[in-house]
């Protein structure tokens, strides 16, 4: 019996949107609508790849992806199905705007429990929009499972997970037994694969499991009470732009000027 792996994903405002295009909406608390499209978050892509590699190796029997979001996130769930995740779950949180990490983690932990039989939860280290870096860790606490953070690769060896992770000073290999939560960071070997054309077509017809917070035993009041904090306002930081360009075609001359200026500015 292989593992049942649940990957927690999030669809985010495209992180590649240039700073110059970033704007804040009239509420002052969130980005303006329409400044960029939405994409499957960068670390969730790495997380999904780690799970799919376990499946390729025969270590995982089933990969489920879960997100807590509005209907628009079906797009990212379908992307996950197109790279051959087995099941996609949307906990539709429409009407509960601006969920914070504590709320999201409670919803996702309950969804993992409702799925049943999950051995390994894989989350990105942080979502590429609000950069909270909390949800995977809070899900671990809520489930009462240990958590291995900043994982880059996972293998199963005789019931033991061997996890390559970013340690404080370099890579580490950690052994752990399921049930377990891991948070994933990027690495050259967990860049998300591209879907095959036939899988892309098939993913459009696959069913998406839809739950509401109420299906997970959370009414609006209970959900509201879980919030850990509140955003008062967003603002755009000021950036200095006073670059002094050192021009010229002769590398030796330019290099000499650069070193001289660095010394004059007392930087070297």
């Amino acid at each position: 019996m292989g593992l049942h792996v649940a990957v927690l994903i999030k669809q985010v405002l495209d992180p590649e949107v240039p700073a110059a295009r970033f704007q804040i909406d009239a509420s002052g608390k969130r980005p303006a609508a329409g400044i960029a499209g939405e994409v499957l978050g960068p670390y969730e892509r790495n997380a999904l790849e780690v799970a799919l590699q376990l499946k390729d190796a025969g270590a995982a029997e089933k990969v489920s992806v879960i997100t807590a979001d509005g209907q628009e996130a079906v797009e990212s769930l379908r992307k996950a199905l197109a790279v051959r995740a087995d099941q996609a779950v949307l906990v539709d949180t429409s009407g509960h705007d601006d969920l914070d990490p504590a709320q999201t983690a409670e919803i996702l932990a309950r969804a993992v429990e409702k799925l049943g039989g999950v051995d390994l939860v894989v989350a990105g280290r942080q979502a590429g929009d609000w950069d909270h870096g909390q949800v995977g860790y809070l899900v671990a606490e809520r489930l009462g499972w240990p958590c291995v953070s900043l994982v880059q690769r996972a293998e199963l060896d005789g019931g033991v997970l061997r996890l390559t992770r970013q340690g404080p000073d370099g890579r580490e290999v950690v052994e752990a037994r399921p049930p377990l939560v891991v948070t994933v960071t990027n690495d050259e070997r967990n860049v998300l694969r591209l879907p095959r054309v036939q899988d892309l077509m098939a993913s459009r017809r696959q069913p998406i499991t839809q739950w509401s917070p109420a299906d997970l035993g959370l009414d609006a009041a209970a959900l509201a009470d879980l919030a850990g904090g509140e955003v008062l306002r967003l603002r755009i930081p000021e950036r200095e732009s006073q670059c002094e360009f050192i021009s010229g075609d002769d590398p030796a001359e330019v290099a000499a000027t650069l070193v001289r200026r660095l010394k004059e500015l007392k930087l070297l």
Partner: protein
Amino acid sequence: MIVIAGRGGQELSRAQRELVTVARRLAGDLGSQVAYLAVGPEAEAAARRAGAFGIGRAVAIELNDASGAVEPIIENLAQGARRLGASVVLLAADHLGVQAGPRLAARLGGSALNDAVDVRVEDGRVIWTRPVFGGKALADVVLRRSPAVVTVRSGAFEAAEEGAGEAAVDVLEAVAVDTAVRVVQREEGRQEGPRLEEARVVVSGGRGLGGPEGFQRLAELAELLGGAVGASLAAVDEGWAPPEWQVGQTGKMVAPDVYFAVGISGASQHLAGISGAKAVVAINKNPDAPIFKVARLGVVMEYEKLLPALIEAVKRELA
């Protein structure tokens, strides 16, 4: 009680001394006290040292756990924070803080916040500021539950100066925690030169290097200047540089005097990691690269041409 938490050691690291600055500001505005909590093999040494920063009370938990798992550290931090009656727990947003902050908050029934770069008190409310959307915006946030467990980004606050003084230290027995998580192998990171986070000079490369070979040139320049080599997320994803070199929102936060950005376009998530640099020197063949917007000095040229000349120029200067 405002509690500064960490792993201890013989000295307070720069990151820990930055936490002292945050704690003092909060304690002054809220009329509360500052305490120090260390959990680790040299917990007591650091706890005594905390007295020199005007901290009167400390808890030391001597934890010698061979597993390498984080759970024993988190559980003992929770014990110490409860003992001290923490209303705020401050951690550096480093390797430990990233994995411990939210979980510690959960265990203490508090609220978590990561990567604080500023804090102020308004009408008795503590307002934390943190970068969001890869540094394209800053969010002002209030936390609802106590304690607030906050990780603080390095370089955002001045490091406190050491003075004289003694802390009253409670030494607590460590709680044993077995999680069946074991570190079985540690790859040695970079051996020579300063740590990226503490280097006075950082030479970083990005996708514009076009391959791993370019990093040898960067390493040569870094070594000449007594600095460290860094990399952008793109270069790490390409496999040209190891992940521990990554600088940016999800890599290392650096605060050197000079940051050389070579072939780095300047994505916001990268810029978020270098905001503590005194000066950025951008070397890029694309004059429209966003990196020039934050650079003090810029050169528009192919790095393959400039770097050898720059290395020669530095050698001449140093000779």
